[in-house]
């Protein structure tokens, strides 16, 4: 199939037109499924188009005008994807919000985006919106999908999606071609979506992406990766995140494949097993948590099984490592692999629901080599992807057969990448965003003659693969001038199943110190198996045994750093285990789980000072924000532990 890289045919230049084409060409093909009441309920492209149309009519009956914004809040639900399409049908702009946002964040985005309409999933979101409504004077209507618990609400601006669609049907009586006319007026350069980036610094920015941006990026990536209309994907990542918009909306409409919405956030793994996706996307933390779950279960298994699993997993991983580094693979290992498939890999992959995967992606952060190798060694085609909201999610993908541990692949068709004089990655592509909404200053800083400053430090290797080192502004030096890349260290720490989050501090200091968050599930299980009792996260975190455990992990990181010529000076000398988990509600990490370094440095200044002093413990009090905005405090006496740096051999 020859694909125009940067042009769109007339009549296929917006999502509503493409969705309508799907409804005409393959009306009975399943477009989206949702597990509801224990059963996978299917909706065809004909339904998809019709539902979106009736929502659009309903919105039109409330006076929706071209350019109006619809805020969309909730878990991945077909009704909410239809609302995205409905808004686009009317020439409006959907603004998806993170469903776990606290009220203050919601108020900011609702007000900043000037949304007149909000379509939300359920009572929880309605309650949040009602509480912030006074701060958002432009918000006129709140529409909800699930009526449960909302019976007693009498606000006149509140209506159910069913009522909205009913109003739409009446409206269609007098205006039978309203939606069709509006769709026809749509053009490729209309805004398709505004995605608010959570941002590791400052207030969220509304990234504006046009239909052209999204369609071309989705199509070019689909062509490069050979996506087919029979793919099955699981829509489980937040709708507010540009990745979900590309995978579960844009690419689905462009290629016609099926999106599956899990029953609830808690059932994702079980639902995945039932669906058996062929195309799967997850940030590293999801792969980490799958691996952790597998390892916990294996540790609980009988001795023989455990031994068997470890032997064969080691074998497969050794093979995969050799393959990735293009070393010769030993004959007997290759000969034993099929047996391993029969006994271990096959059943494991089946159990995880990954058997039908044709390609799986990871992006957002560097993935641990152990995790990457683990999944690839099971025969899963896991690949690394690089991109960001400003590029319509995608910049580069590892090609099949060109997968490496430490690169993020080659640029997609029609994407140009160059490295600036300061070592920053820059790119230009049909997916480059239209600017930040109502923020020309930030737009000017990021967008320069069509090139985007990614903010990441990196380089192209000799094979044309892009390699990302760290956030450009995070790379710094210790007091003695040694180069220090905090993210690099943190990722190494996080590759341990016991470490959930880590923050390394060393800029302008004598040595590097680390704040560590343990993984409650993994360390809890580890403690139980050793008969170590604990009452809570705080208690567990401060157990001497747990400190010993993390000490080993820090030692492992130092050993691996000792082998690196450039970074061996920046080994971790001291660490402590934080008494609370870093949490987006406390603004310590973003909703996509990236550490907000500046905020953490400020909030834990006392701890950081203690780490760089001679003290061996420090007393702290931390404020905790609950999801409904209430706050509480946690008090703890946090211990500080010295770690031995590995001697630097004179090379």
């Amino acid at each position: 199939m020859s694909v125009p890289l940067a042009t769109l045919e007339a009549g296929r230049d917006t999502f509503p037109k493409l969705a309508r084409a799907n409804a005409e060409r393959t009306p009975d093909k399943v477009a989206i499924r949702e597990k509801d009441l224990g059963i996978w309920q299917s909706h065809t492209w004909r339904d998809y188009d019709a539902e979106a149309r009736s929502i659009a009519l309903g919105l039109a009956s409330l006076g929706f005008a071209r350019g109006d914004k619809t805020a969309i809040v909730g878990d991945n639900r077909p009704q909410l994807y239809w609302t995205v399409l409905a808004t686009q049908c009317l020439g409006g702009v959907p603004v998806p919000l993170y469903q776990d946002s606290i009220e203050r964040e919601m108020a900011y985005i609702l007000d900043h985006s000037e949304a007149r309409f909000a379509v939300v999933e359920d009572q929880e979101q309605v309650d949040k919106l009602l509480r912030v409504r006074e701060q958002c004077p432009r918000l006129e209507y709140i529409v909800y999908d699930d009526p449960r618990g909302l019976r007693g609400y009498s606000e006149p601006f509140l209506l159910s999606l069913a009522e909205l669609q009913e109003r739409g049907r009446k409206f269609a009586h007098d205006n039978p071609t309203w939606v069709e006319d509006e769709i026809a007026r749509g053009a490729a350069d209309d805004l398709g979506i505004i995605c608010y980036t959570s941002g590791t610094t400052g207030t969220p920015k509304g990234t504006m992406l046009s239909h052209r941006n999204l369609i071309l990026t989705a199509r070019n990536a689909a062509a490069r990766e050979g996506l087919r209309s029979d793919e099955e994907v699981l829509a489980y990542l937040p709708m507010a995140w540009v990745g979900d918009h590309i995978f579960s909306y844009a690419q689905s409409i462009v290629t016609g494949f099926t999106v599956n919405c899990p029953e609830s956030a808690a059932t994702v793994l079980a639902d995945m097993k039932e669906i058996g996706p062929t195309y799967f996307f997850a940030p590293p933390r999801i792969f980490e948590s799958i691996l952790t779950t597998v390892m916990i279960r294996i540790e609980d298994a009988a001795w023989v099984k455990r031994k068997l699993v470890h032997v064969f997993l080691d074998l497969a991983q050794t093979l995969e490592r050799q393959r990735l580094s293009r070393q010769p693979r030993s004959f007997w290992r290759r000969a034993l692999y099929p047996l391993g498939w029969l006994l271990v890999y096959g059943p494991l992959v089946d159990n995880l629901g990954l058997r039908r995967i044709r390609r799986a992606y990871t992006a957002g952060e560097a993935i641990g080599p152990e995790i990457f190798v683990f999944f690839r060694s099971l025969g899963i085609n896991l690949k690394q992807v690089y991109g960001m909201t400003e590029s319509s999610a995608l910049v580069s993908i590892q090609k099949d057969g060109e997968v490496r541990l430490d690169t993020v692949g080659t640029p997609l068709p029609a994407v140009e990448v160059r490295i600036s004089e300061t070592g920053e990655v820059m790119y230009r592509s049909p997916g480059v965003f239209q600017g930040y909404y109502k923020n020309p200053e930030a737009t000017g800083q990021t967008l320069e003659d069509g090139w985007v400053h990614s903010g990441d430090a990196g380089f192209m290797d000799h094979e044309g693969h892009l390699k990302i080192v760290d956030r450009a502004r995070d790379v710094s030096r210790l007091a003695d001038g040694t180069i220090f890349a905090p993210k690099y260290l943190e990722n190494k720490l996080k590759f341990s199943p016991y470490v959930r989050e880590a923050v390394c501090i060393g800029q302008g200091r004598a040595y590097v110190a680390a704040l560590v968050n343990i993984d409650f599930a993994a360390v809890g299980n580890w403690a139980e198996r050793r008969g170590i009792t604990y009452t809570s996260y705080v208690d567990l975190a401060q157990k001497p045994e747990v400190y010993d455990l993390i000490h080993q992990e820090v030692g492992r990181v130092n050993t691996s750093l000792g082998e690196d010529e450039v970074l061996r000076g920046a080994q971790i000398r001291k660490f402590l285990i934080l008494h609370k988990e870093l949490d987006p509600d406390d603004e310590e990490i973003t909703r996509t789980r990236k550490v907000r370094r500046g905020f953490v440095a400020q909030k834990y200044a006392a701890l950081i000072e203690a780490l760089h002093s001679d003290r061996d413990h420090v007393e702290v009090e931390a404020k905790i924000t609950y999801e409904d905005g209430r706050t509480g405090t946690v008090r703890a006496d946090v211990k500080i532990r010295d770690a031995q740096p590995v001697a630097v051999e004179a090379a």
Partner: protein
Amino acid sequence: MAGDGRPLLEVERVSVRFGELVALSAVSLEIGRGEILAIIGPNGAGKTTLINVISGFYHPQEGRIRFDGTDRTSLRPPDIAALGIARTFQNVALFKGMTVLDNIMTGRLLKMKGSFLLDALWVGPARRQELEHRAFVERLVDFLEIEAIRKTPAGRLPYGLQKRVELARALAAEPQLLLLDEPMAGMNVEEKEDMCRFILDVNGEFGTTIALVEHDMGVVMDICDRVVVLDYGRKIADGPPDQVQADPAVMDAYLGVYSEGGSAPLPNLPPGEDCAGGAGARMKAGESSR
């Protein structure tokens, strides 16, 4: 439901004695249609006995109980359940080895018409019947947000979830009157908030009348329309929560029992502790979000 203005349940001068011990002495109360009633009192006041009398587990030596206008003082528990009264237990009483779904299905037993042969072969009406009941149970699973544990054996669940499954099983009988014996006992704050929300939702969505025995005064004050206080088998107060809380007889009952131990009497409620209103809250610290 027949809304003829009569209370749903009338308890008239009911007395229960176990040998010399008087568990209930001439207790009278009414439960109105659609209300949430709390029954409180110090330990041994007769709260659970009262629940057991209403559900037909005990039969009173004196007095009468009328449900929906008809006398049913001497009916046995299954007959009473068939009339539309369901209950949960103070100590969780689930079938530990059975899955959550199967446990809830047992709540539908009274609604099933059995034919041994057809059921065994799973044909015709038996199959249709099972599917209908299963669909109903799925609505409860959705309602109580227990999708993730559908197929988990009940015994493997944490306590708070077992309580929720028990509630689901009681609801499966589509009761008019739901009796909850200490639905929040042993729960943490988050589990309590969830349970409060579910109780209010059950009341709001299904119109189910609810009577609950509870010790957590925050819960009682937040979600109940009316409070009945028992002490040594006697009813000593009956009215709206704030009124009951200020009642000197109630204060006295709690002080009289607890003051020696130094434990707090009827706890004063911090005004901000709005249990039901904070139902969306989630304890985040120390909670793994996987």
